[in-house]
């Protein structure tokens, strides 16, 4: 019995030992943690990969305290795996991609070979599908270099992905993760969109700005939307989480701004006389952020006037977006997907020439704006006369 107990204890200890670490464990000092990647095409079948590695150096209190703890490494090659492994010769450590949250690809790569990186990215068990993918017409290396310049330390390691996660405060850029991007691409319409980055000159130096959206159709980039058009896209696909619309009052020609707190878009489709008819009803709600008209925003008339002005502004943006997408023959609005889900037989008829059908479809939009409240004050301007507010029935 004693031998049996001893054997049991020995076996338990023996089996517990491997639980302390895995076979191929990697010490942190031997690992280079990658926070972002950039891909550019150098020539046919040759790509340049730039990785930004978190350096781990303590720069607190030093002259370079504002600079992020990141180092960029660049290498060229034919496949992602060969470049990444060859990079070890420069980095002197194994690259770890488990924390890489942003991928920046040049517009040339987006136009010619979008899946060059994504194939390896999705196959390997290190990278994450919840990372963000960006397209840039500028130098990828410079975008990565400048993206964390002038950043606070909190976001210095992951500036691009941190910005993408603040979408709830502004809605004129899109932030699909790689998962959402691939999901869209694998849908029957085979279209998707990606946010774009541009380098802008500012007083403090160069900064990287989210600017526009890359339009992807059948696995490559076919065009882009500017910032305003991206705003329209966000509304049409029901991705608005918070943002702002500003306009000028048609009566007083003074500025007004609405802080958007919610949005709902309804889509209705009809196929008649060999033509597709689509109608988008966009319902926006928000609160008054600024009103230079000096009106009392408690009054229904003033409210209505501002709602109509904002609705007209939004309507113009939506029409511009729809026009651009139809011109690019790319259905990013989910019309094809809606038809596929609700009328699969009709979809199978239209599938082979869907891009043309979408380009020639009659797409109309309507915007309804509701102002929830004017904020803590009714008007900032002191010339408002004191009076009993009039009571009117709600519309």
């Amino acid at each position: 019995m004693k031998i049996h107990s001893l054997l049991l204890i020995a076996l338990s200890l023996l089996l517990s030992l491997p639980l302390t670490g895995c076979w191929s464990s990697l010490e942190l000092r031997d690992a280079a943690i990658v926070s972002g990647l950039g891909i550019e095409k150098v020539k046919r079948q040759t790509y340049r990969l730039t990785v930004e590695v978190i350096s781990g150096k303590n720069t607190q209190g030093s002259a370079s305290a504002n600079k992020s703890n990141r180092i960029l490494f660049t290498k060229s090659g034919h496949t992602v795996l060969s470049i990444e492994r060859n990079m070890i010769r420069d980095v002197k450590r194994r690259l770890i991609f488990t924390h890489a949250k942003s991928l920046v690809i040049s517009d040339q790569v987006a136009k010619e070979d979008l899946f060059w990186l994504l194939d390896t990215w999705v196959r390997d068990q290190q990278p994450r599908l919840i990372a963000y993918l960006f397209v840039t017409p500028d130098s990828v290396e410079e975008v990565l270099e400048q993206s964390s310049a002038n950043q606070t330390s909190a976001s210095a390691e992951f500036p691009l992905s941190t910005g993408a996660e603040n979408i709830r405060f502004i809605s004129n850029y899109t932030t699909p993760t790689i998962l959402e991007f691939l999901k869209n691409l694998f849908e029957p319409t085979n279209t998707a969109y990606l946010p774009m980055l541009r380098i802008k000159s500012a007083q403090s130096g160069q900064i990287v700005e989210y600017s526009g959206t890359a339009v992807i159709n059948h696995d490559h980039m076919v065009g882009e939307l500017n910032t305003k058009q991206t705003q329209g896209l966000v509304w049409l696909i029901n991705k608005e989480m918070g943002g702002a619309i500003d306009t000028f009052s048609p009566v007083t020609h003074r500025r007004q701004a609405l802080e958007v707190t919610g949005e709902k878009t309804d889509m209705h489709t009809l196929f008649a006389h060999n033509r597709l008819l689509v109608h988008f009803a966009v319902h926006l709600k928000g609160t008054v952020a600024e009103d230079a008209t000096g009106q009392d925003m408690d009054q229904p008339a003033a409210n209505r006037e501002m709602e109509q002005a904002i609705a007209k502004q939004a309507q113009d943006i939506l029409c511009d977006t729809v026009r651009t997408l139809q011109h690019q023959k790319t259905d990013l609005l989910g019309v094809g997907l809606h038809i596929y889900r609700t009328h699969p037989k009709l979809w199978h008829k239209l599938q082979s020439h869907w891009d043309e059908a979408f380009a020639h479809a009659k797409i109309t939009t309507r915007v309804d704006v509701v102002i929830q409240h004017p904020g803590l004050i009714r008007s900032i301007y002191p010339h408002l006369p004191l009076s009993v507010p009039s009571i009117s029935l709600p519309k």
Partner: protein
Amino acid sequence: MPLEKASRWESFFATMITLPIIGHAVLVSLLVRTVGRDEWLAVLITTPLAAALVYAIWRVRKEDPQATFPALAKKLLGRPLGFVLTLVLALYLLFLSMSSIAFLVDFIQISFFPETPTFALVLFFALFCLYAIFKGTKVILQTAIVLGISSLFTGSTVTMMSSPMKDFGEWLPFLEFGLKPVGLGVWVVLSMWAELLFLLTLPFEDTNPPVYLKLWIISIAINAFMTITPTMGVISLFGLGFASMLTYPTEETTRIIHLFIVDRFDIYGLMLMTFGTYIRTTLYFRLGFDLLFPPKQKQVRSTFLRIVMALLFALLAGIAYLIAKQHVRVEQILLLYTLCGALILLPFLLLVILWIKNKLAARQIALKTS
């Protein structure tokens, strides 16, 4: 080794921890590729069939609740056919045990440890399993209760955490490719329900057999739910197109979830897969072994049988190692697994034979009394 019986709760939790490994992780990729969005319909169609299956198993078992299966088979079919049936069932259970190891190791290598040699994973896991096998069916079933309760409650957390990311519009269109994929899906899911044959080999411990049936029916309902939710959840998250490209779609679901300090929740998927496979491997092996070497009522511990047990398990682990070395072999074993769904007819066959025997016996009694 003494005869071991299962209480109602042990049998219930055994079904709750063994079947979901297949329905939750292993079969999902195949279901997405064959049935697609209509997987829920295939599962719903098979659920009453599974309920009929457990009724047939229970009814056959009730004939002699305390007897071992070889004795029961001999009673129903006679010595030669009873032996053949016992052998078939034993081989099936041993196949399930072996394939469970292969599925787990393949899963771990693809999702977590691509550089760890296959033999290290198989050996490490097999040693743990061997210990449980030596302990016996009763201990394994009691372990299954603990693991089953924990997985039952924690499993719903993944559903809750991934819900905000789901697009339920992906469930449409309905029956896009007609009923043929649903038929294929029914066949695939039936192969999962066929695993319930192991209940035939468990003698009842409780003296009130109807409670077993009630719990088994509840288990069928919960397992059906647990088979629908991961596949449809995966389609809702990734869309059918992208989901059909993934090797282990449900693991990918947990990879995109992060919970406070747990940056990646796939560790939970690994845990659950390991727990369930541990019970599957040990329980099925032990039950299969006991069919080949039936335990006698008052038999003392036999060193010879333990050695045979260890050698047989080592053989199965070796086969699992060879299969797990290449993913294509794992896919082939999975297809073989689905073919074993034909064994689902066995309990119904036994029930028919039992009914005929009872009818003949009743007629003979009636003739004698008249």
